[in-house]
Structure formats: C-alpha cells, structure tokens
C-alpha cells in the first residue's frame, strides 16, 4: 500500500541510523512489546484469535511476548500446550478449519521440525487440495536463537524450508514497527503464515504507533539509500547490514540496504530495481546458503537482470557446518557487520581488498547474556 517504502523512518530509527527522523511524540517500544501489543490488539479486535504453544502462559511468557494475555483473555484463548508440536500444529489447523485464528508459538525454530508434516502436508496444501473450499488462517511464531552457546539445535534459521513450499507465507520482520504490523497482517491473513523472530531482535527498540496497523505482505523496505552496492539483510542480518553500511561510509562506499521483510511472497521488484542501479548485490541471511533464501534472491535477481547489465553477486550466511557453542568458533560461524562490509567493498572494487574495518563501539553487536 504505502508506495515504495523507501527510507521509512521507522526501520532506520530503530537502529539509530537516522536519528531524529522519528517525531519526538512517537512512542518507543521493544520488539518484544511490539509483538505482545499486536497479539493483544488482534485478540481484542477478533474473538476468534487465540494464542497457544509450549509455555505461553508460564511466568516468562515467551520472553514477555505473551505477557498479560492470559489474564486479559482467559485460558480458553491463551494456553500452554503439552509437549506435542505435531498434534498441536494439527489441532491448530483443525481450529482454523472451524473458523478460529490460532497463533501457535514455538520458542525455537528448531522445534518446527517436529511439526513439518502438519505445516507442509496439511496447512500449506489444504486450500489447494480441497479446491479452494477451506482456508487455514494460522500464524506460527518461531524464534531463531543466537549467542551464548545456543548451539546446534537452538540456532537454526529454517525459513527457506517454508519458502520452498507453495501455500504458506513467510515473514521475518527486523524492527519493532514491522514486528507489530507484520503480526497483525499475519493474523488477519486467511492463509498460513510462518512468522520468524530472531532472539537478538527482541532487544531492539524503536518507534511503534499505538494504533493498530498492518505491514503489507509481499512488500520490501529500502532502509538505507546508496548507489554502490545493494545489501539485502534477512531478519537479524538486517541489523548487521545497516551497521555494515556505516563501516562502508568510512571508505566512501554508499550501500543501499533492503529489508525484504516478507520472504514469501518475496518483493523481488524492489531488490532488482536497486541492483539494476548498483550492479552489485550482497544478500546476508541468518541461515545456511545452500538452497536458502539468499540463493533464491540472488537467482531471481540474476534471472531478471542477466543481459540487462553486468552483475556482481554474493551471498553470506551461516558457515556450512553445525553451529558450535564455544564463543571463538561461534563468532566464525556468523557473518557480522565488519565481515559484511569487507565483502561488500570487495564486490564494489572487484578485487580482494584485504580490508576488515576496526570495530567501532557504536556499531558493536548486541551483548547478550544468556541463558536464553
């Protein structure tokens, strides 16, 4: 709806990229509170909306994202479930078939692997295989972990598995503003939506309007404007890309940064339009590269622009191994603002520059003290 969401103040302001661009009167919320507020407002708006999952009603309330919902809406609409991801996903689908609008919460994305049959074989396919006679208005929230030894089974970014499958939408907001608007959009969507959160994004703060609003499926956002290279950062890597853009400024490279927000449907128009200008594309994912979201974006851009102009393309993401817990190895497993900046500069200068910017205190990664 909002025309090309170019340089939207909410996205950048959340990271202090364009300080002062948000009106002083505007309220600041954390990502956690933005998620919670969206769920609260959608539950208030529509009595068919309910929230359940392991531990949504316990004292920690899923990092606080479900805090207060049980007290306000009662145990029929907010309940913790047995440790039964398969059956509870199937039950969520049954509820959706009966006209409810469930939000099923998983505190780690890794647990979705226990629910793949219901998500892929039933949720994504029901509308089609039943000839359009049913809808599955289901939201599945899940979190990617990172830092403090999350390790092999608490850190996976599996969103591309779902991008592969027709019939399910995938959204990965990176700012509090988009967290609220995308969750509202997902709840109101008549189709299944996988809502991808990142544990480190939960600590982000940014402007979030109090009134309810939606962020339209299938629209990317340009979060920084530049002409030398296009950086596409997925989920938490959007934060690192914006930091990388600041490092690149110091060597005279102007990076355009794009947050795809919705991975399926994917707004390839906005990305390709940028790459047609810059000629260089670096996609950074919080996931592996093989058959991943970054591969898909690069492939679609290459298909679109081959023969139109010369292209320099690169992907960054998890190292092609299992995530280790010890900090020294874990740091090597992930891209970060400095390694992204280095790769982007190499693309721009078309050579191995051997440059790695010195870490700037104002662009450090979030310090996260576990356990979760």
């Amino acid at each position, binding site marked *: 709806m909002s025309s090309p969401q170019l340089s939207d103040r909410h996205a950048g302001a959340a990271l202090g990229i364009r300080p002062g661009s948000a009106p002083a009167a505007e309220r600041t919320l954390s990502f956690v509170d933005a998620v919670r507020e969206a769920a609260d407002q959608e539950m208030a708006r529509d009595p068919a909306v309910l929230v359940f999952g392991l531990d949504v009603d316990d004292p920690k309330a899923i990092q606080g994202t479900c805090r207060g919902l049980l007290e306000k809406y009662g145990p*029929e609409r907010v309940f913790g*479930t*047995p440790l*039964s991801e*398969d*059956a*509870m*996903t*199937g*039950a*969520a*689908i*049954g*509820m*959706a*078939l*009966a*006209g*409810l609008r*469930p939000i099923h919460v998983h505190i780690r994305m890794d647990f979705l692997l226990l629910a793949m*049959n*219901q998500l892929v*074989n*039933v949720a994504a396919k*029901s*509308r*089609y*295989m*039943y*000839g*359009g*006679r*049913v*809808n599955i208005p289901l939201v599945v929230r899940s979190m990617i972990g990172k830092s403090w030894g999350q390790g092999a089974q608490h850190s996976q970014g599996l969103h591309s598995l779902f991008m592969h499958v*027709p*019939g399910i*939408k995938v959204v990965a907001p990176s700012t509090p503003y988009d967290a609220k608007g995308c969750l509202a959009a997902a709840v109101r969507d*008549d*189709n299944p939506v996988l809502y991808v959160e990142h544990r480190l994004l939960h600590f982000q703060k940014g402007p979030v309007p109090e009134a309810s609003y939606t962020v339209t*499926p*299938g*629209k990317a956002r340009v979060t920084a404007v530049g002409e030398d290279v296009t950086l596409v950062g997925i989920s938490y890597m959007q934060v690192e890309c914006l930091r990388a853009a600041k490092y690149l400024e110091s060597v005279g490279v102007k990076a355009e940064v794009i947050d795809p927000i919705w991975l399926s*449907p*994917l*707004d*390839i*128009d906005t990305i390709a339009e940028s790459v047609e200008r810059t000629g260089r594309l670096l996609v950074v994912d919080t996931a592996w590269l093989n058959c991943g979201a970054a591969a898909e974006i690069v492939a679609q851009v290459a298909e679109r622009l081959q023969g139109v102009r010369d292209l320099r393309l690169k992907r960054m993401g998890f190292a092609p191994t299992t995530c280790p817990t010890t900090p020294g190895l874990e740091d090597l497993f992930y891209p970060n603002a400095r390694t992204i900046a280095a790769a982007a500069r190499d693309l721009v200068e078309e050579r191995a520059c051997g440059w790695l910017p010195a870490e700037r205190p104002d662009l450090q990664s979030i310090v996260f003290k576990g356990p979760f």
Partner: protein
Amino acid sequence: MRAQLYRSLYRIRRLEEEVARVYATDKIKSPVHLSIGQEAVSVGVCAALRPQDVVFGTYRGHALYLAKGGDLNAMVAELYGKATGCTKGKGGSMHLIDPEAGVMGMSAVVGTTIANAAGYAYALKHRRPDAVVVSFFGDGATEEGVFAETLNFAVLKQLPVLFVCENNGYAIHTPQIRRQGKADICARAEAAGVPSARLNGNDVVGLARRTEEALAEVRTGGGPWFFEVATYRWREHVGPGEDYQLGYRAAAECGPWVAADPVRRLGDALPAGERTGIEAEVETEIAAAFAFAEASPFPDSAELMTDIFKEEFDVLTAAQR
C-alpha cells in the same frame, strides 16, 4: 432405521463396485482405496450423527464421505478429475471434502487428520457446543506419534470428539501383530484416559446404537470416547482388484467377513419390495453420477495456479514476480 442403513450401505457398496468396474477404462484419474467390506463402520457411526456434526477421515474415505452425506455427483466427478468434482479435480479420491455436509477432509498421510479433528473439536467446544467431531483412522495410524499426542490433548481439554479406529488388520500388507508389540489399541486409549470399546464392524445396527450412547456423553461435556472397530478390507490396499495372490494374507481369511456381510444380511432382512425399491433408486442415482462425471469438463488450465492462497491470483503473483 434399517431401511436407511441398508440404503446407505448398498449405495456405498454399489458405488465402489462401479468405480472398480470403470477403473480399467482409465477414466478415473486418481488412485482409489476401496472401502468394500468396511462400509458398515462409517454407516453405523454416521447414523448417530447430526447434520452439524463433523467428520475427518483417511485416504480410504469414499464410505465416510457418502455416509456423512457428501455429494455423490461431486465425488464421482472428482475421481474423474473433472471441474465439477468436490475439489475441482485438485484433490482426487484421497482428499474428498464436503464442508456443507460436515465432511472436513481426508489425508494421504496416515494419522494426520486425528489432530485436525481434535482442533476442530476445541473450536466447537467453545463456539458451537451442540456439535461433535468424529475422527476416523486405521490401525496403522495408532502407531503414529500424533495418535498418542492427540489422545492426551483431547483428554486434557475434555474435547467433544469420538475417535474411531477402523482396524482392518493390515497397514498396506503388514499385519497388526508384526507392527504392534502389544496389539491392544483400546488399552492405549484407556491409558491416556479415554473410555473405549471394541466393537464389531459388521454390526451396523449395534455400531449406530453404541455411537449414540457414547455421543450422549461426548455431547454433554463428558470428553472424548474411543472405538476400536474390527473390520476387513476385501480388496487390495489400492486399486480395484483383490490381492490374495500376493500371499501376505489367505483368501480364506476373508471368508467369515463375507459370510457376515452386513450389506447382504440387512438387505435380506428387509421386505422384498422395499429392498428392490431402494436398490432401484440407488442404481439410478449412481448411474446418474457417472453420467454427470462423464459429461463434466476438465478444469481450465488456469486452475493450476488458483486456490494456492485465498487471494486473487494476479495480486499475489504480482507481488512475487
């Protein structure tokens, strides 16, 4: 009552015999898992259901679809892959649905709909307490984790759902005794806290009565019930024929089931005139359904890309392009 049961049984039997007969012509564009021999389970249970009640089933779902009141023309057209089919030729025999009749879906992945049924029951409990859900599945499905998980959830939330395990003794070609360390499915339901009964799948009148009794509890907040119903698949796992030549089961094993065939026995018990009247009407209806399927068009090629999302096709692809 008996006349109605006979009509339903005879209709399913004859419909599937016609499916088997026509199958050789390749006009049916879908694998078929015939329920011949097992019809009485669906007919007996559905005789105790109300129109607003809802059923979920399996890929062997012709009998359930028809017993619950699914549209016959739309079913045959679906098997033919026609645009007038109940899913416009997109789901085929294994994914029959008729929401208006309370037939809410069937899965080709064993056990899958058990959980869907429980979720539907959760919604009914809080929004439409006059209705219940019946979940049909086979003996093989009780080996899936989703069966145990769903029983637990149904008891925990005291859901209005009746679980009906149609135990035909085989998962494709493997007998229950080679798959289950303790071949007592009712015991597993009881262990989860679900009251259970082991019933005779050829006793259609008894099944209707026992379903009525169990649902009296389920409808009044008593929580879930479980039936293990003994039955037998006369034909091959998938396809129109028999499969005794494969050697995994003896033809003689089927003998007692054929001897106790409820379709024949119920028919024999009816006054001759009433029986022939029912049969003539059913034959006319079935012939009309096949004629409807034959005359119906195949879906337009544009249908390949519709119904993926509930949105206009061009809106979404515009976003994806």
